[in-house]
């Protein structure tokens, strides 16, 4: 039994536009969605810029009751799920609910709602013994963000295994990897898989300020996220969600589904080094890449595009460049690689899934999204980072990689649907 996993639907809620089309339009044109924070008054913070979603939950079909119940991360995930359901056609395919699973990545869960609630019950930080008289009836759902997976399961009528995978900034990639395992082993035929995070709230902005991980380039928000550029000085915080319909290949073929790509391989390793730091050698990420290639039976030389973690911190850029060279060898120099975080920022546990969605779209359109704001390449980063302008290229296999706080290093390999059918 050799069950293969394919992508049959995509939903994306990313900064700069709602839905897959607007997302692709933004990243393929090299425009950026980074701007001054509007979610709250960020005066007094070190980094006051973010990539925010102009997202109207009601316009995406959520009811007022759902909006009251859901944290923003759940709203974004639900909207992305509904888009993915629509374009995959699985809702009409009559699939038994217990053969559908959910695997959703999120690094910080329902942090916006938790913080709003805290401000109220603590009287803006005056009371340690917070007041239970003012709590929302939904507080427990924010407290344990398994509720995010619950919302996706309800939106998709799923009764198979459901989980939130919370591996810091590799959550999105790891949730997809987990989903693929569930399908390969035969537990389910379909998984609604992806990631969501809505972290633009005072506590999260402040905690990244404290470690100077985010950029303080407040005077030039559109050009603030500069992966691989000599002048980069931190990432731009973002929000967003992407949900992919992963499906067993024969199952998809039998129902006549449109197959967008094969989810060919996944690998993950830990650096066991530091909760936030990276070594320069990229050893663990290289191993994750090697595992993903091996599982997908894809030779390093077949990789036509690398979607980088490219967060815009110096240590990442060097770590990741080393990892790609270590795993792809000489071929690394001929492989275009870009970071869409230059345009849509870094949405923590969501971005891995958003980036895999970008990879699927890049293969569909034979067009590789660029790294925006790359004008002065860092001499220490000596690969081809597709500066500023998208590049037309037909690719047969792509690699998407990510690093997360906690030491997580993950890699996903996707291939063209023609390869699956052959």
């Amino acid at each position, binding site marked *: 039994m050799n069950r293969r996993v394919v992508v049959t639907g995509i939903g994306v809620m990313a900064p700069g536009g709602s839905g897959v089309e607007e997302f692709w339009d933004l990243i393929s044109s090299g425009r950026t969605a980074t701007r001054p924070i509007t979610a709250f008054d960020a005066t*007094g913070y070190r980094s006051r810029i973010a990539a925010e979603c102009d997202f109207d939950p009601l316009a995406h079909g959520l009811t007022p009751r759902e909006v009251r119940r859901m944290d923003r991360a759940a709203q974004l995930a639900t909207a992305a799920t509904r888009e993915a359901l629509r374009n995959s056609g699985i809702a009409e395919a009559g699939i038994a609910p217990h053969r559908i699973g959910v695997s959703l990545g999120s690094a910080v869960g329902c942090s916006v709602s938790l913080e709003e609630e805290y401000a109220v019950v603590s009287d803006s930080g005056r009371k340690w013994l917070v007041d239970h008289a003012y*709590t929302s009836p939904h507080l427990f759902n924010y407290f344990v963000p*398994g509720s995010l997976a619950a919302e996706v399961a309800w939106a998709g009528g799923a009764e198979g295994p*459901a989980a939130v*995978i919370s591996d810091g900034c590799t959550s999105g990639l790891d949730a997809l990897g*987990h989903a693929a395992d569930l399908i390969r082993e035969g537990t389910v035929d379909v998984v609604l898989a992806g990631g969501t995070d809505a972290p633009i709230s005072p*506590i999260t902005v402040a905690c990244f300020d404290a470690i100077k991980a985010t950029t303080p380039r407040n005077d030039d928000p559109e050009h603030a996220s500069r992966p691989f550029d000599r002048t980069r000085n931190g990432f731009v915080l973002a929000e967003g969600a992407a949900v992919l319909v992963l499906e067993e290949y024969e199952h998809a073929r039998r129902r006549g589904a449109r197959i967008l790509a094969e989810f060919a391989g996944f690998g993950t*390793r830990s650096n*066991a080094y530091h909760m936030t730091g990276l070594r320069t050698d990229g050893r663990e990420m290289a191993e994750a890449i090697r595992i993903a290639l091996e599982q997908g039976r894809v030779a390093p030389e077949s990789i036509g595009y690398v979607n980088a973690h490219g967060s815009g911190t110096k240590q990442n850029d060097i770590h990741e460049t080393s990892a790609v060279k270590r795993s792809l060898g000489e071929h690394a120099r001929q492989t275009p690689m870009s970071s869409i975080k230059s345009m849509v920022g870094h949405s923590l546990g969501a971005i891995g899934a958003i980036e895999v969605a970008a990879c699927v779209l890049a293969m569909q359109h034979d067009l590789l999204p660029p790294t925006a704001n790359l004008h002065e390449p860092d001499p220490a980063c000596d690969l081809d980072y597709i500066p500023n302008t998208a590049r037309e290229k037909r690719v047969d296999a792509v690699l998407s990689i990510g690093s997360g706080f*906690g030491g997580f290093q993950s890699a996903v390999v996707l291939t063209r649907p023609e390869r699956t059918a052959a």
Partner: protein
Amino acid sequence: MTGKAVVTGLGVIAPNGVGTKEYWTALLRGHSGIRPIERFDPSGYPTRLAGEVPEDAFSAADHVPRRLLPQTDRVTRMALAATDWAFADAAVDPADLPDFEMGVATANSAGGYEFGQRELQNLWGSGPEYVSAYQSFAWFYAVNTGQISIRNGLRGPSAALVTEQAGGLDALGHSRRSIRKGTALMVSGAMDSSLCPWGWIAHQSTGLLSTRPDPEQAYLPFSELACGHLPGEGGAILVLEEAGRVRDRIARGATTQVYGEIAGYAATFDPPPDSDRPDTLRRAAELALADAGAEPGEVDVVFADAAGNPAADEAEARALRELFGERGVPVAAPKALTGRLGSGGAALDVATALLSLRDQVIPPAGPVTAAADRHGIDLVVGAPRSARLRTALVLARGHGGFNSALVLRTPA
């Protein structure tokens, strides 16, 4: 390589016993860890009892390097200590194994919540510059997995799962999959602790907590007097190894034990609350048994989720009756002596079930004197019950609709 995952090490922190031996002795003697909250002043809240681990029973400074204390919440300190104990119990020094062949998958419900409250308080009360540099990871859900990996040099596949109480089983199911895929050793299980005011009101907001003031009467799962549950803190960290590797290790003279095999696992998710479709706990149990290749009749004991509120107790009892028949299998609910520990509770139930398999005895459900007749279950109450035990089923339900089931078997 067999691809089978067996448990060789346990590290336990429970309200009624810190350390495997202390906990197991307390359970068999019926000693409860339910007590008035001391971590903060609970007098202003309707529920004032919890399964709190006393400060003198777990003093973090005795177990965790001083460099790690400022950057860790209590939950992570517990997880790090329990990991050390689990490795010692398994007689494994992680330095002896290739780093990529060892991973960590733990579950978590709310992260380092007390740490998080302190930083929210700093931010809202004093200003953003008062937020700690450690806040970026000390509170988040992956913190235990990350810190365990770093402290022990585990560079294999790692993950953190969030499915509330079900998480303790889901982490073990995830780890078993990693072993099947070729990883030699996984540190797994779960630890939870959110006994701070901010965590407390989140628990209370469900309306599911008991407000009875008597520790002996407050949390009585399956009882006619069931009136809600009490949260607690703690859990269990387990060392899982590939069975063939353990055999080789023992053949070379290692003095370890095999507590049991994780023989089956499954998870399901309930339909929405307003649906007329049935809940899916029974299916989770059936799928886990099928995964283990076991018939219901082979199950010698079930460790129940034991929610402690009448409707949820009845839903679980119904699933048990449908699967095993009226009073068809002994049911254990040791949670009655600890409270519900979030994802840590399910991991602790697995540790408890393994100890039951080892000693061929089922612990009693603490202060519960009898299951309500209408439940039709054979709840073990009063005193430990000796029995021939080969196969145990552990059930867990997470808030919102998560159901997980795990089958344990004694070593062949």
